[in-house]
């Protein structure tokens, strides 16, 4: 039952479209082309062009059209061909996805999913290597979810589609061809719950999306040295699963955050703040935060690599926080 992540995502879309005729996909090249990362490959043949709506290149307006359609009963999945392009739709996302349920006094719901590939790929250049989670996290009224495995990509996307809240769903450009299994049956994973990737005792590493694998690479080496970090995949970037996080922090008393997000204004910044503020007495060491450098992502490979966190840096940080090396 092994499949690639894009196939798992496609299954989620397919099953939810099958289940509910009000579910549709809106975006550039989601129909005939099947999506830039194949998430809707050939689905238009099954569901037709209205349910796999190929749009002109006008992110702000097709996002807004999705909002309007959601207000009156449809459940659109709006794809950003690359999530970065949704910067053009920022206004519709922040004002209307995020706030309209509130300003309307609860009268209108906006049950839509905004999804697409994001993150730093392989030398895609600054504009195609965006971390939108940093820009979006301040928006009230939306949930932010980042998938990371074949299994959770499917089961989280299904939940996101069924949620009555607007959900921004982050996929990572470099994970679409990841192999793995999905959970059998109609399984929906809770959007608000973190995943304990690996239990451990020496410190807590909080991460998400592709950085999960950067962390696991580092942890494999650390294991050999007898160091046992607990690794948690946040899954929910907003709100944080404070239950899972607090439990782990209380156990290990040491926290490292590993993210691809910008250091300033990133997810890690919010997370670090919340942990230091609410679990101050449970911490034996300052929270350590490994983020991208606060620079546009360069094209050249070495500069790109120097911009994002590498496994060695994670290992080094664990060494430091666990007192294995002089601080």
């Amino acid at each position: 039952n092994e499949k690639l992540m894009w196939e798992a995502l496609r299954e989620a879309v397919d099953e939810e479209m099958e289940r509910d005729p009000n579910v549709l996909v809106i975006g550039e090249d989601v129909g005939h082309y099947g999506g830039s990362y194949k998430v809707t490959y050939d689905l238009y043949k099954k569901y037709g062009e209205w349910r796999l709506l190929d749009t002109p290149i006008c992110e702000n307006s097709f996002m807004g059209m999705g909002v309007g359609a959601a207000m009156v009963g449809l459940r659109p999945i709006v794809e950003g061909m690359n999530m970065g392009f949704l910067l053009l739709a920022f206004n519709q996302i922040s004002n209307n996805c995020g706030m309209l349920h509130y300003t309307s006094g609860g009268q209108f719901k906006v049950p839509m999913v905004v999804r697409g590939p994001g993150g730093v790929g392989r030398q895609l250049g600054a504009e195609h290597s965006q971390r939108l989670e940093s820009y979006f996290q301040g928006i009230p009224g939306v949930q932010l979810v980042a998938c990371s495995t074949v299994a959770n990509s499917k089961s989280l996307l299904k939940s996101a589609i069924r949620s009555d809240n607007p959900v921004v769903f982050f996929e990572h450009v470099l994970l679409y061809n990841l192999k793995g299994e999905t959970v059998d049956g109609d399984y929906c994973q809770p959007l608000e719950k973190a995943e304990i990737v690996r239990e451990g005792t020496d410190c807590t590493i909080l991460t998400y999306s592709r950085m999960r694998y950067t962390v696991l690479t580092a942890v494999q080496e650390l294991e050999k040295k007898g160091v046992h970090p607990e690794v948690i995949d946040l899954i929910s970037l907003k709100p944080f699963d404070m239950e899972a996080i607090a439990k782990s922090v209380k156990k290990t008393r040491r926290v490292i955050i590993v993210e691809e997000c910008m250091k300033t204004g990133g997810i890690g910044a919010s997370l670090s703040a919340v942990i230091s503020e609410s679990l101050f007495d449970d911490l034996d060491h300052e929270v350590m935060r490994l983020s991208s450098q606060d620079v546009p992502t360069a094209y050249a490979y070495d500069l790109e690599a120097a911009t994002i966190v590498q496994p060695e840096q994670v290992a080094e940080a664990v060494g430091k926080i666990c007192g294995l090396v002089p601080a």
Partner: protein
Amino acid sequence: GVATKPAETKSKKDAAKGGEAKGETLSPDVARDLYYDMYLGREFEEMCAQMYYRGKMFGFVHLYSGQEAVSTGAIRLLRPDDYVCSTYRDHVHALSKGVPAREVMAELFGKQTGVCRGQGGSMHMFSRKHNFLGGFAFIGEGIPVGLGAAFQTKYRREALQDESADQVTLSFFGDGTCNNGQFYECLNMAGLYKLPHIFMVENNKWAIGMYHDRATGPSFGDNVPNIYKKGEPFGMPGIHVDGMDVVKVREAVATAVARARRGDGPTLIECETYRFRGHSLADPDELRTKEEKERYAKRDPIPAFRKYVLDNKILMEAELKDIEQQVVECVEDSVQFAEASPKPEKGQLLENVFADPRGFGTAPDGGYRYEQAGFTSGTAQVS
């Protein structure tokens, strides 16, 4: 597999309503309705001005006075299950669509009984019950939203094979808004997908302090800008209409509505109109000349229609007086209602952030936050 249930059943009068609008004289019933609605729009707005100056409402309050023929002429023609999308200048569109004056006034007073529970305010009127989609404070952003409602109708017809799906959506916006990209993006999509969407441009010649001709270039060969000419390049009829004449507006919209219901797609209607007040109650209104204001004051759509129905013997003076009286009472009642209504409780603060309150997440001590005692007391910090 039907996407939504219409908020109200279709009016039986629909056909009749559309019928007379092709040059025939108005029926007394329709005339009464139009006069009532325009008069209500005006009285309501003038009352808002008073209440604003008395400190009963705050923020940016954009009055509609002068433009009533557009709202009334267009919206009174619609069925309850048709959709309307508006801007920050939305009170009167809401009233025309059937939202009770009480609820609009109470919203402006920031009361619990307001149509949005006091959470929206002047620029954010919404009424699900009346298929009134808002109330959008930012320029242009309502157009795609309106388009989305039109898309839903099309979707129900095409993807869900619901033959009865023939609702029409009207999105209202101003001349200045027609320079925003969303307008064109939506014109294109509306034309491409043949959406039952009518672009209602209320060209009142000004965008705050920006005169229309300084903001919008004329078409090649023209000396002045003509917004209706933007329709044809995007595959739809572009119609220019005297927005100070409720009958003409009604006629133009009837044609466009019929076209949309038939499945033939969108129409762009430019209504030439004028606002009799500043942009908002905070606007000193120093740039518009006295001459210009006077010129349009002479075309005030309400006395003009009054004269029309009297001249054509559609209504009698006494009936009109009666309507005027009713309107005054209705507006007065709305103020009393708003005044007497309670303010929001603090607990309301967190109630409509998420339709599904799991969006508030889990708490350090376990469980979903929203399940914790006292969560909606409004004192819980969300983080």
